[in-house]
């Protein structure tokens, strides 16, 4: 190593003779553009949002409100009903993903990695395809399919003699959010599927062959070998799903409109934030209440993510090969 000439960066001696070394401007220059844009558009606006949550009044005449906005959001009857409804709906929306999407994604990934399966790439591409589409298309096409007038769904159900089962799901209070949850699962299942598939490919062949030698094949192999190795990946997928679910807005907006109908039954935190910030037909936008909703969302996501990392992710056994 002829690095003595080069003044290797960061070994003990170099640190000691810091004063004799030239200032390494290039580090600052490499970091500057990314740091500037990220700080100005991500970090500072977020801090500003937290600050706004503690004020009220018009832009030129703001007054400090302390925790009043939070109290209004959680307790005042005009707001609290909407807030708790949106929170409960977001939790339900996430539960659908947790109970349906993640198991389905792992199942599909397991099937894709069956050895010697032909056309696996084709299946993967097809199932991943909906994740690439814009919400405008997705909201529209599912409204179309489920519509009682033009809908393809009634026709299909009639074809198998189950027409009596059909309901205008998106138009009924008790079904709308669940229907949207399933549409969202349809849209996103490709991402956790590909991530689980990647984790399964990373399992060394020797491990699986050793299992086969011991007579562990098929389903037993999946539950006793693959799944235990997959838990850390499933943990990461769960966190990412949670964060994206608690910020989703577009699907409900494009399918049900800004009022998240029918009668707010599909209102989630994202649509509540949008309405609070920019107003809708019946209410005026309010930057301070909007900032309060955003801050609450941030706190909820932060608590859950930290709790998950601390209590669950840390305890998952990782195997090193």
């Amino acid at each position, binding site marked *: 190593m002829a690095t003595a000439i080069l003044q290797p960066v960061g070994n003990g001696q170099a640190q000691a003779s810091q004063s004799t070394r030239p200032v390494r401007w290039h580090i600052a220059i490499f970091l500057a553009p990314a740091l500037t*844009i990220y700080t100005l*558009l991500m970090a500072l606006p977020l801090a500003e949002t937290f600050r706004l949550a503690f004020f009220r009044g018009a832009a030129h005449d703001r007054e400090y409100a302390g925790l009043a906005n939070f109290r209004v959001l959680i307790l005042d009857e005009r707001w609290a009903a909407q807030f708790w409804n949106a929170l409960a709906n977001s939790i339900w929306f996430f539960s659908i993903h947790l109970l349906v999407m993640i198991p389905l994604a792992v199942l599909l990934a397991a099937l894709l990695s069956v050895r010697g399966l032909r056309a696996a790439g084709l299946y993967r591409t*097809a*199932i991943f395809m909906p994740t690439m589409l814009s919400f405008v298309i997705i909201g529209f096409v599912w409204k179309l399919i489920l519509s009682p007038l033009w809908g393809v769904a009634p026709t299909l159900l009639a074809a198998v003699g189950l027409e009596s089962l059909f309901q205008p799901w998106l138009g009924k209070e008790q079904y709308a959010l669940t229907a949207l949850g399933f549409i969202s699962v349809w849209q996103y299942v490709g991402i956790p599927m590909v991530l689980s*598939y990647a984790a399964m490919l990373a399992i060394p062949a020797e491990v699986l062959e050793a299992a*086969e030698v011991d007579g562990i094949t098929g389903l037993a192999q999946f539950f006793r070998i693959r799944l235990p190795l997959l838990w850390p990946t499933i943990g990461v997928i769960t966190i990412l799903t949670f964060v994206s679910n608690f910020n989703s807005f577009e699907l409900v*907006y494009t399918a049900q409109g800004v009022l998240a109908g029918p009668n707010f039954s599909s209102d989630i935190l994202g649509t509540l934030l949008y309405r609070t*910030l920019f107003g809708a037909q019946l209410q005026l936008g309010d930057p301070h209440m909007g900032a309060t909703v955003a801050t609450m969302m941030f706190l909820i996501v932060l608590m859950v993510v930290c709790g998950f990392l601390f209590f669950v992710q840390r305890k998952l056994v990782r195997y090193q090969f």
Partner: protein
Amino acid sequence: MSAARDNFSGNHFVAHAILAFFSVLALAPIAIIVMNAFKSRDAIFGAPLEPPTTGTFDLIGFRTVFANGNFDAYFMNSFSVTLVALGGTILFGSMAAFALSEYKFKLNSLTALFFTMGIMVPIRLGTPGILELMVASGLVNTRTALVLVYIAQGLPMAIFILAEYMRTVSDDLKNAGRVDGLSEYVIFFWLVLPLLRPAMVSVAVFTMIPMWNDLWFPLILAPGEDTKTLTLGAQAFIGQDVTDWNSVLAALTLSILPVLALYLVFSKGLIRGITSGAIK
């Protein structure tokens, strides 16, 4: 290969059946849109599930869209915003990732943590602050506003993936450059950057799809006619003109095409990017 050869074909049959079922489920709604875009109005309502035949084939929807929609303008807006934001994300992201993975300095891990936070905290929650900033700097209804926001949105993930990848670039190469008296900038731009191509593809796909399909920021920062993106334009089009189904379906088909093309070009690189251990 397998010891259990007798249940092998049975296993395969079940796997094929399940995967084929979900593949059809994934593609059918897209097929319904594209198929009906090429049909006459009566055929759309009469037999939505039938592919266009010589009798029902009709391009009226596409003609309407091209005649009276601003779709070419919307498309150019989406295209330019996505392209510039993507370029910025990759360039600035790799510069920062290089600084973080190559040099040891005092605030290194803190800076890395600062960027990593952005993966967990969605930029959307800063919207009130972003809107204030854009109003103050007069950038509302400009494409610049969208580009800046998308770069900030894409950077954390890009830096994360690129920094992972940069650790695989050999030190000897960089040190040889240093011995030859190349400056750190030359080393980065001429020696390291060209080696990052595979990682750039997966960064591109990961950051590009959310940018192209985003509805939140165009709706809030750039709702004006001149700066509307394709997604927002299609949404408005559907809102104002629900009765003209031919045009709506044609417009949606047109907005699927670029994404489809992109995916077919990049799908190999994308899967390789994911499987190369971005998530461990």
